[in-house]
């Protein structure tokens, strides 16, 4: 797997000059992105609700996405751009309409909005996951040539923080499955991000969200745009910026462990163009210390995840019994018992995999 360099740019948003300048600068500081002619570029904003205004820091401001589209069109005049999002507490179509995204289709002839929840789905077997056996994803994702992830900087009641790494969760088309898979969020996010590693990751930190995010928090003005080619490095820098330890955020901790990303490798490049080590962050940039919910509330959230995790394993055992019942009533029974279909050791390993591996998909049996 070819990953982007862990260089993160941080640019101040000058209100007088608008967000566009900041986006251009942030992207160029990380080396820029020049899509090939005829390619399909997907932009994934964070539209987790349709009932918050863009100034609250809950959803990606359409102006940020507009600036990215302008940047891409400046780089190549023959590309198609898809703004992709799936249903959340409202349908993605409603979010597109109410949050001003539908206008993008009128302004730009090469931009289309895509509600991933309405797309045909396919079940994919992730290459780099020990835990996830299948993920059901929208078919559109198989066709895209580039992905740009545009997230907000927010506190999250279950995870302490949400940024780019978690933004990919919105690539899963079905909301009930997303909710059900929350206990395995770290594993699912790892599988998704390693399959759909964004070519550009941009955090709209003009306004961040503290307290009980990702929807009900309190907006805090930071006035920053962060950009990187490495979705995990950008989250680590954002965490540093809000005064949170990366080891305390479960999905970031999991990703760091499995990607073997060393913090020493991360470089930060500031507005003025000087490249500094991530370890010196405290010296070069302000720490904002975003507040979080009470510890007791957070611990209850985590406990609920543990219990739900267990229930998913139990459910797998239940499904396994159904399949075993099916096998015993079919003509394959004899073949299975005699070990002709596969040797006993292979059967046991399949059974174990069936129980311990997680299907992030709608089950069609049982």
């Amino acid at each position, binding site marked *: 797997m070819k990953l982007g360099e862990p260089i993160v740019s941080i640019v101040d948003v000058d209100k007088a000059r608008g967000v566009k300048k900041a986006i251009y600068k942030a992207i160029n500081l990380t080396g820029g992105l020049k899509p090939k002619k005829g390619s399909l570029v997907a932009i994934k904003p964070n539209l987790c609700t349709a009932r918050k205004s863009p100034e609250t820091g809950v959803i990606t401001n359409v102006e940020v996405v507009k600036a990215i589209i302008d940047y891409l069109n400046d780089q190549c005049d023959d590309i198609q751009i898809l703004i992709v999002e799936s249903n959340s507490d409202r349908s993605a179509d409603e979010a597109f309409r109410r949050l001003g995204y539908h206008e993008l289709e009128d302004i730009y002839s090469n931009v289309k909005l895509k509600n991933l929840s309405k797309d045909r789905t396919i079940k994919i077997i992730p290459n780099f996951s020990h835990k996830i056996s*299948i993920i059901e994803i929208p078919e559109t994702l198989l066709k*895209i040539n580039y992905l740009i992830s545009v997230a907000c900087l927010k506190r999250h009641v279950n995870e302490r923080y949400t940024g780019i790494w978690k933004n990919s969760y919105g690539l899963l088309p079905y909301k009930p499955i997303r909710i059900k898979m929350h206990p395995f969020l770290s594993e699912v996010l790892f599988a998704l991000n390693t399959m759909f590693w964004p070519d550009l990751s941009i955090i709209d930190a003009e306004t961040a969200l503290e307290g009980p995010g990702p929807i009900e928090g309190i907006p805090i003005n930071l006035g920053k745009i962060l950009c990187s080619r490495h979705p995990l490095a950008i989250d680590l820098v954002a965490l540093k910026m809000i005064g949170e330890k990366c080891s305390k955020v479960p999905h970031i901790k999991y990703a760091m462990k499995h990607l073997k990303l060393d913090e020493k490798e991360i470089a930060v490049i500031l507005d003025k163009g000087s490249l500094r080590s991530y370890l010196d962050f405290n010296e070069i940039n302000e720490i904002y210390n975003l507040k979080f919910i009470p510890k007791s509330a957070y611990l209850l959230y985590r406990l609920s995840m543990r219990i739900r995790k267990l229930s998913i394993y139990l459910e797998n055992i239940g499904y396994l019994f159904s399949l075993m019942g099916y096998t015993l009533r079919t003509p394959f029974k004899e*073949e299975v018992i005699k*070990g002709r279909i596969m040797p006993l050791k292979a059967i046991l390993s399949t059974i174990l995999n069936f129980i311990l591996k997680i299907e992030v998909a709608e089950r069609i049996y049982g």
Partner: protein
Amino acid sequence: MKRINVAVIGCGYIAEHYYIPNLLSIPEAKLVALCDINEERLKIIRSKINLPHISFYKDYNKILERDYIDAVVICNPTRTHVKIVLDAIKMDKHVFIEKPMAISLNEAKGIVSIAKKERESYGWMSNAFLIHIEAHSETLIMKPEDGILLDYTCHFIDLLRWYLDGNNISSVLAMLYFDKKYNKEIGASLLLRFDNGVLGIINTFWLYNYTTWAAVNRYVGIVGTKGKIIIEQSDPTLTIYKEGTLLSRLVGLHRIMPRYAIHPKLPLSQIAYRKELEHFIDSILRDKEPKPNAEDAASVLYIIELSKKVFLQ
């Protein structure tokens, strides 16, 4: 709702476990009659499927005489196919034949010409081609009565022709491996060239006396100028590489599961049989040509005979 009344001729293992259950699960089809020359088989089937509207016959002619029967699914041994098919076509029945169509090309040609003459909407499905793909190996379960070309390789010639619909095979190279005990070919390697320049390579082998299915491996690999796809049957997944896409750039070959598969380790055979029957019934209902049809099947036999000739030369 219009339904197609179907009869099954030949109630062996494949009919009992695949065709009959699948016909019962297609709402547009109504299984109305079953026929087998062996009374013991009929008794077994009757004990399992004793629906009042299903009639049981020993003589298939009785089925063909019934006007209300629209279509017949023929699951008899290959050597008995031709006569039944010809009789069925003469009696205005739609015909679905379990592969292969016939033992020889001449027999197959006979079926095609009569079917054309009668201007019938004839049906032919050699196998579950909609999902089943190619084989590189297979467990030898029974005696190789007709040799691997007729009994097994035919599926994959059919499949290649389906992929390259509208293109004829312009040249054939063949190598066969013969079994001394049965004096039949149990391995075949074919290299086919189509009109449009595409090459088809088919390697089929029966794995002799293997005790488990662990070595069974069936797949199709399609290589294009900008992508590649590998379709596996025993491990029902599609492995894809599409040049330039984000996913291929990041992970290279990636595997996806067919829509109807329930698990990457569980075979799809039941679904494949149902799909081909659904296509057959749908072709009759919509009065359209099924794929593959009788001509396709005859072409497969032509290639098989040509392969044998090429090898002997």
